């Protein structure tokens, strides 16, 4: 079931990209000896005698750490690192790739890196860190035996996540006041101001976060999608589905017969499957997709589903959304 969070992002098994060409120990923090401690996403305090330096991190978490200058020794991702929205464009030389498919981690290779810390988001809905959820290979879950695991919580806000990783980076000895970090925060603040302005101008605009698939339509439940909670917080009316799947509350599952259950003015389309032509294709393929008036009117925009970790990425996504909101008609769905 859990495979549905990265629904369309399931990826190829680590084809052992064997990035072992470069020299060892890319972890740079010459930080003080310790002792070290960090409050994990689940509220527990994790302690160590020495500040960890050899870190294995999940994709987005690794990108967050790298934005503060901390380079992990290994990364496991849910899809190929070339297409992962967090990792694409980053310089990954010297970092061992331990997995490029959800639920599959090469623990043997991970062990050979002798990690002293594993960094992975905490998912409150599943009460597990990324890479240890239900559905992950039992062999891959042995990752947790290698080192303590910490991560910020995929809780109520992406900002909490971003701050959580800033704090973690700080505790690991990174400088968090570098000018480029301040710059991306500033860019985020500007984007946010414009976003709020756009939503305030359209008080009746409702949006629905969706992910159509061949045999059903998934409607996202904002309660378990921090970025959607943020949008709601900032004035955008993201519709809360009324009967999320009890076993996997990230989504409400609608059969294609019920595709038009909600009539939003703008559709936030799961970014993992969004393309420019997706709306037209689904309209042709599924007789009821265009029963959603917003879909018929082409009012769709990509939604950064479950992957944001940094101010910089959030700023970029907010800018795209602001444009769509400005262009949207707040009376389509009514």
């Amino acid at each position, binding site marked *: 079931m859990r495979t549905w969070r990265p629904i*369309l992002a*399931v*990826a*190829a*098994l680590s*084809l052992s990209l064997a990035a072992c060409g470069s020299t060892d120990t890319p972890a740079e923090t010459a930080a003080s000896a310790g002792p070290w401690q960090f409050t994990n996403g689940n509220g527990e305090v994790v302690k160590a005698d020495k500040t960890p330096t050899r870190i294995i991190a999940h994709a987005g978490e690794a990108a967050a750490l790298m934005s503060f200058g901390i380079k992990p020794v290994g990364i496991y991702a849910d*899809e*190929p690192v070339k*297409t992962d929205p967090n990792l694409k464009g980053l310089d990954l030389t010297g970092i061992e790739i331990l997995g490029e*498919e959800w639920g599959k981690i090469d623990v043997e290779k991970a062990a050979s890196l002798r990690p002293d810390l594993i960094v992975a988001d905490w998912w409150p809905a599943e009460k597990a860190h990324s890479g240890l959820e239900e559905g992950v290979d039992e062999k891959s879950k042995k990752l947790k035996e290698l080192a303590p695991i910490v991560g910020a919580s995929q809780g109520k806000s992406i900002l909490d996540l971003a701050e959580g990783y800033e704090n973690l980076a700080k505790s690991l000895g990174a400088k968090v006041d570098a000018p480029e970090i301040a710059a991306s925060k500033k860019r985020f603040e500007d984007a946010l101001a414009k976003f709020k302005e756009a939503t305030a101008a359209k008080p009746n605009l409702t949006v629905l976060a969706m992910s159509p698939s*061949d*045999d*059903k339509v998934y409607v996202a439940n904002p309660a378990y999608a921090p970025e959607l909670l943020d949008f709601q917080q900032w004035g955008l009316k993201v519709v809360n589905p009324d*009967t999320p*799947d009890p076993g996997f509350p990230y989504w*409400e*599952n*609608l*059969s*294609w*017969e*019920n595709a*038009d*259950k909600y009539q939003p003015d703008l559709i936030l389309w799961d970014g993992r499957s969004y393309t420019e032509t997706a709306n037209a294709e689904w309209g042709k*393929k*599924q*007789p*009821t997709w265009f*029963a959603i008036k917003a879909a018929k009117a082409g009012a769709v925009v990509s939604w950064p589903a479950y992957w944001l970790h940094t101010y910089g990425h959030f700023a970029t996504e907010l800018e795209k959304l602001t444009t769509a909101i400005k262009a949207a008609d707040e009376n389509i769905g009514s």
Partner: protein
Amino acid sequence: MRSATVRARRALALGPGLAVLCVILALVAFLSVTLGSRDIGLPEVLRALAGLGGGTAIEDTVTLELRVPRTLLGILVGAALGVAGAILQGVTRNPLADTGIMGVNSGAAACVVLAITVLGVRGVSVYIWFAFAGAILATLLVYAIASLGREGATPVKLALAGAAVTAGMGSLTTGIVMTNVDALNELRFWQVGSLAGRYAPILTGVAPFLIAGLIASLACGRALNGLALGEDVARGLGQRVGLTRAAAFALVAVLAGAATAACGPIVFVGLIVPHLARFICGPDYRWILPYAMLLSPIILLLADVVGRVVAAPGELQVGVVLGVLGAPVFVGIVRYGRLSEA
């Protein structure tokens, strides 16, 4: 003389029995069009069916474009799987034979991922042809491998060849999807058998094959009866065993291949229904085949309706419902029923 009267008496009851099944199938089909995950009142459904709805309302779209093709597909696919299962059990004289064992599902999957990775094709309407081709190729491959050697395609060799080809195709598929994300994503559509998301183009695509296969299969009863007596007896009765077997396999390939291409691997129907039919009709394949042809779609459609109603506003795939309901039934048959030898 005595057996002749028994047979006559049996035929007397079995004929009307088929008529009763036809009525039940019609009722189930009606349920399948009127019940669903979307709540549509009976008057709206009837109006849509009568073409009075104007064709624009969502109720009309759901009834005519979703439920009607789905129901027709369910009837054809169900019938095809039941008949294919019955023929396979007869021709291999293996009461546990079903289309999955003969490499049909794995062949379809392998061919789809090959088409995605090697030819770069996209779109469900294209995949079904590759799935169909793959299913037929796999079945023919099983038959060809089993035919090697002097005594031809014996039941044991068929079972072994089926297992070998299934394993081979399976590893080919796994090998490809592990290195190709797109192939894996697209393959998900086939991993659980389902009638959802299949509309008119898929129905009209596979219907000719299924209908032709079903009609042809009704002519095999006599030959299967001969094979059921054992090869030597069949040969003694003047049957050309090799030819019969080859023809039966070709039919299975077309029926199961088209069904799997359209809906993915649907379990249990092809395995259980022939046993049910045999339970009702006794060992005569001239009756078993038409009974399987009517019983299977009844069961498949009922399971599909259950899956649509229990999980509203979502749906359960029919493959899942059949798996859940089918396992205990099968245990029951094994435990209490007379699991008659094919």
